[in-house]
């Protein structure tokens, strides 16, 4: 093992990152520029005539080139595709290199570099591809000791040997000179193998079927969101479309004309503040229940647990009174005097089930850590922030995710309180309300399905992005949250 080669490979990897990163930055800014250029129908009397959207034939001028609608669609699709391909590449490698040790390098690492280089090539990132190929040779040298030339020479014999091996295996075994017992063992092994293969086959078949049922709505959503109006209302809808037919302008319409940008902003505000508040209040409360000894602790805690059984609808009725005119006056006042955000955030800045969940993980932190900190002159609060919170951070992360998801899904409470505000209240819709209650219907009675579904996709995609970024943590956290609850 040559340490120098390992170091060299790591260095190349780091340089590759820089180029990967530059490439992605280019893709994204290209996307933003092109997306910004997309032309929308004109606004007449304060509203947009969406019917003519699919009949518009704008021409775009970009870098001295003239592009028509189809070419524009193609380019945007490609840019998005490139981003989607190279982003995971970047993220995966960042993680790997930081934890990689000299012992983990094997021929698999080298071949994966090759695959990554091919992906780079597909996304027109020639520099990264070249660097990765170079890195592959360094790794090959590191693992096998071959130089590039020897490597190419060694490929042919290796392939030949592989095929030879396969042919050898196919030779029929001769059972003639075996005694009865061995034959029966041989047969039972064969029977076992067949039943095993059949079982595995059925398992996979079952799983694939379920996976298709799960995936189809997502596929259909993305597909429809890119169709034009007549494509979305065809009696025999197409099951796929070509990349030049992808109307990215739908998303622009949804974001600007239908104001989903605003609703997404509202939702993000509510999600951020309610999550921040929830984390603070629940961490403090869970700490008190887990570590501080006081009279009536168990009683208070069991009261809290019992209220978890009561359905949320019961609260909503009174809370509606509480936030309205006769209560805090956050909603239902004259125009301009309402605090919709406060009314949407404050009731949700704490949660009994999260207190319960957090207390469980706090309780698992050994008492001796607390004692050690006390001896070191660490105050309770400092112990909480410097020791408990970092150790329980997986749980806190899970809570954050759960809470953000539930804000993203909030429908009834925002609907009730923005409902009393009429036009003004509409500006404070969260995305779920907007999705359900925006009129995607034109004056002539047409339902703009493609736009409705594009809005749905727009709401779904951020969640999916968050999910794929933190996939492992989220899935483990959710699994455990169930186990502990």
């Amino acid at each position, binding site marked *: 093992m040559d340490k120098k080669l390992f170091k060299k490979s790591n260095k190349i990897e780091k340089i590759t990152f820089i180029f990967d990163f530059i490439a992605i930055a280019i893709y994204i800014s290209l996307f933003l520029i092109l997306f910004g250029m997309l032309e929308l129908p004109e606004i007449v009397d304060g509203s947009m005539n969406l019917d003519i959207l699919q009949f518009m034939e704008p021409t775009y001028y970009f870098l001295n080139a003239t592009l028509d609608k189809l070419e524009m669609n193609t380019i945007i699709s490609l840019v998005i595709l490139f981003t989607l391909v190279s982003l995971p590449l970047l993220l995966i490698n960042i993680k790997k290199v930081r934890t990689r040790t000299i012992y983990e390098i094997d021929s698999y690492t080298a071949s994966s570099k090759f695959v990554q280089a091919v992906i780079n090539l597909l996304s027109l990132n020639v520099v990264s591809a070249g660097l990765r190929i170079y890195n592959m040779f360094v790794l090959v040298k590191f693992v096998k000791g071959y130089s590039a030339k020897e490597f190419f020479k060694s490929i042919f014999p290796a392939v030949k040997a592989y095929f030879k091996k396969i042919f050898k295996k196919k030779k029929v075994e001769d059972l003639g000179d075996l005694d009865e017992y061995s034959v029966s063992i041989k047969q039972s092994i064969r029977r076992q193998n067949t039943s095993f293969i059949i079982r595995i086959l059925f398992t996979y078949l079952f799983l694939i079927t379920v996976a298709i049922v799960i995936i189809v709505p997502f596929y259909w959503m993305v597909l429809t969101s890119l169709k034009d109006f007549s494509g979305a*209302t*065809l009696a025999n809808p197409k099951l796929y479309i070509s990349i030049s037919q992808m109307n990215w302008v739908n998303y622009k319409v949804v974001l600007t004309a239908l104001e989903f940008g605003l609703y997404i902003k509202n939702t993000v505000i509510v999600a951020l503040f309610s999550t921040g508040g929830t984390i603070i209040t629940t961490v403090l409360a869970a700490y008190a229940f887990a570590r501080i000894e006081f009279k009536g602790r168990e009683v208070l805690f069991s009261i*809290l647990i019992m209220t978890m059984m009561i359905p949320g609808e*019961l609260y909503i009725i009174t*809370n509606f009174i509480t936030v309205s005119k006769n209560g805090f006056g956050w909603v239902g006042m004259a125009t301009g005097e309402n605090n919709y955000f406060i009314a949407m955030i404050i009731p949700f800045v704490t949660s009994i089930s999260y207190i319960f969940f957090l207390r469980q993980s706090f309780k698992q932190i050994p008492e001796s850590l607390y004692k050690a900190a006390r001896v070191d002159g660490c105050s309770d609060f400092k112990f909480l922030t410097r020791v408990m919170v970092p150790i329980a951070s997986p749980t806190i992360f899970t809570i954050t995710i759960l809470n953000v998801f539930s804000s993203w899904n909030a*429908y009834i409470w925002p609907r009730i309180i923005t409902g009393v505000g009429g036009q003004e209240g509409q500006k404070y819709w969260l995305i779920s309300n907007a*999705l359900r209650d925006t009129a995607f219907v034109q004056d002539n009675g047409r339902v703009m399905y493609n736009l409705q579904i594009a809005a749905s996709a727009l709401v779904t995609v951020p969640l999916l992005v968050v999910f794929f970024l933190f996939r492992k943590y989220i899935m483990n956290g959710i699994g455990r949250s169930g186990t502990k609850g």
Partner: protein
Amino acid sequence: MADFIKNTKKFFAKVKQSIKNFFWNIRRILNNGKRRIGKFLDKHNLNFASKFPGWAKALVYLSPALIVLSIFTFWPIINSFALVVYENYNMTSNTITGYTLFGNFITVITDESFIVPASHTGSSAVINTLIIVFISVPISVLLALFISAALNSIKPLKSFFQTIFFLPYVTNTIAIGLVFAYMFKTDGGLINQLLSFVGVDTAGLSWVESGAVYWRSMFVLIFYSIWASLAFKIMVFLTSIQGIDKQYYQAAAIDATPKGRIFTKITVPLISPMIFYILVTSVIGAFKIYNSIVALFGVTGAPSGVDYNLQSIVMYIYQFIDGSNAGSLSVAAAGSLILFAIILVLTLVQMQVSKKRVHY
């Protein structure tokens, strides 16, 4: 070049050090202040902090949560008992005309379309909800069990499948509901198109639009709620199946136990506490079904132009929360107390049953 890199590295290290020094010094100053105050208080025998009883300290930590909880959780519970005895409570003027002990409950129970099927729709909220609960929960729990057992038995592509099955969890209920409604459209819906591929006559075969019939709409609703709720159950089951000690399986393998029996005699009993927990929570969850119905059929809970509706209990309650009609909030409170009672009874029954059947 190398020099330059070295120098920049040094520079950043220096910056890092001085930032750390800065914070260290701030902490030092703060600690010093604290110490001085502490000394002063000690001297004058004023230091209550060290004599603080536990509950006072606890109160400091608990107060943020408790304040919010008491306003938005405890008070509503108390207040809803007050609301149900009010007659004609008007929330704008904050007035009532009198008290009634059971009046609001009677209004709810005898209301057409709560328990008794309404004459013009032929369906009621309670019946709808019960149908949803008793069909969707068993199917989804069983399906989740099979899927997680299947997942646990494979190696290649396991985390790929796991990720896919988890996707419905990270979606917006309304958004995917709209997609489902679109997929089940009469003309141009994916489902009808697929059905016609296999030779079903789909002309006028409506699911979620005018022309649909009750059971078809119900099918879509149940299908969607199973689709959406599967992810969480699979995750939880898989986590607990993976937590089972391998020795049980090894013992079973040596005894030549067939796979089916291993599943029913080892896997299921060992995770039965989890199954029971999931059963309870998903029954409660299904009782509170709301968002999926709204997504598929709109806030009225009925496809336009049909003579039935798919209102759930929660939906029935929410239609009274608009604050305009006198007395409507009391009816809503009565409805939600009834819902609470149903959930409580079901939970208790399930607990009784589980005591006999769940292996702890």
